[in-house]
């Protein structure tokens, strides 16, 4: 087979595979969502969850840092008292 013919075939195989896999992504994603909704709902409004998520991500590194820093500075006796709205 010529290189070009082979390349055409490869194009076919490649694009079919990519489409199959991304179809599976869609399909399996939906199945996971349905499965989780059914068996592990833990009804959390998405928005709250998102914020919480974000917060906890920050928390881990930065809030912990600032809070413990303030604590340490003051030998465990201090905390930030004024944090106002922007």
């Amino acid at each position: 087979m010529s290189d070009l013919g082979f390349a055409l075939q490869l194009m076919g195989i490649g694009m079919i595979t990519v489409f199959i896999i991304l179809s599976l992504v869609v399909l399996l994603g939906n199945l996971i969502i349905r499965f989780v909704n059914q068996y592990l709902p833990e009804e959390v409004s998405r928005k709250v969850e998102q914020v919480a998520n974000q917060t906890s991500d920050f928390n881990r590194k930065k809030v912990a840092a600032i809070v413990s820093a303030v604590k340490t500075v003051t030998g465990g006796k201090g905390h930030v008292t004024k944090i106002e709205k922007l």
Partner: protein
Amino acid sequence: MSIIEKLYHMTAIQDIVNGPGTLLMLVIGGVLLYLGIKKKYEPLLLIPIAFGLILANLPGGGMSVVPSEFIELDGHRYKNLFEIANDHGIMNFLYYSLIKTGFLPPIIFMGVGALTDFGPMLRNLRLAFFGAAAQIGIFAVLLSSIALGFTPAEAASLGIIGGADGPTAIYTTIMLAPHLLGPIAIAAYSYMALVPVIVPLVTRLLCSEKELKINMKEMDKLYPSKNKIKNLKAVKIAFPIVLGIVVSIFVPSSVPLLGMLFFGNLIKEVGVTVARLSDAATGSIMNTATIFLGLTVGATMTSEVFLNSRTIMIIVGGFIAFAISIAGGIAAVKVYNLLARKKINPLIGATGLSAVPMASRVANEIALKYDSKNHVLQYCMASNISGVIGSAVAAGVLISFLG
């Protein structure tokens, strides 16, 4: 021999006199540094690549990567890493232990996974399809490159630039055509940096104002999706595991890339109990990998390897691959819109290319230009991230058939 003569022979001046290619390479290194430093084109990679290129082209420093014939021995054996370091210096030690083994790109993909949030994609799963159509550039350029005289393996490495994903392009090239690693890496990262230019260019060529004004949020209101996610965390944890398994079954040769991507994503989503691991994956491991990847990829580009017509063809071909991929994504949306009532903004097709997250940001800006209330970022991210999977799958197919 006099002192002066000895001194002169110690320097690399004679080498420079002999080969003016060196000076040209230094200019190219300077241009890449300029792009990385001043223009901020993917500086994390272009600066190390450029510095590696400069070091490699200064004769006598022993910092250039030698062709693999230099480390071949009789009977299908190779020099060991200690011998490579002894004979060819630390840059080859790094190259042959970290790059030629295919080690660093998967390691970087682990970090990419730990930085990737599949949330936007999970909330708009349908849009993930358009990450498939946007891989067409890879294969279109593969086809044309073969016609232009590249071997299939070389053509595949060239085409994969259209995947718009650095580690994928580098991994594929290592596996298929390592002698083209330098120019392909540079093209891949340069065009990713040029996404703010390329995406608007192609989009305006192919899309009407009306199409670009399609408002996804209103579409969502008109045709709400059935599956609300009730427990996002659980879904996000299950997703990389299931996907990892399924992809491994269907495209085993993409496992080193996608397996590590999904592993990185899993440890991110598991959260605080394994935060040590995801911190390492996105921090010290990824940064170290980036430095050594950049320096060694740069060090493959000696004047003999770089200064030829193929490099020009790679630069041109890479651009075409990018453009066709974007066009492919847009075309797929147009076809979809012909058939479906719930219309999709073609920008979501354009971002199927990947180049996460810059393509999405650029697409969002374009949308806002036409309608200042039309925020498409979250929707673009869906196809954008699926484009990463798409091009890694395409890479797996190419490696499987040509490797």
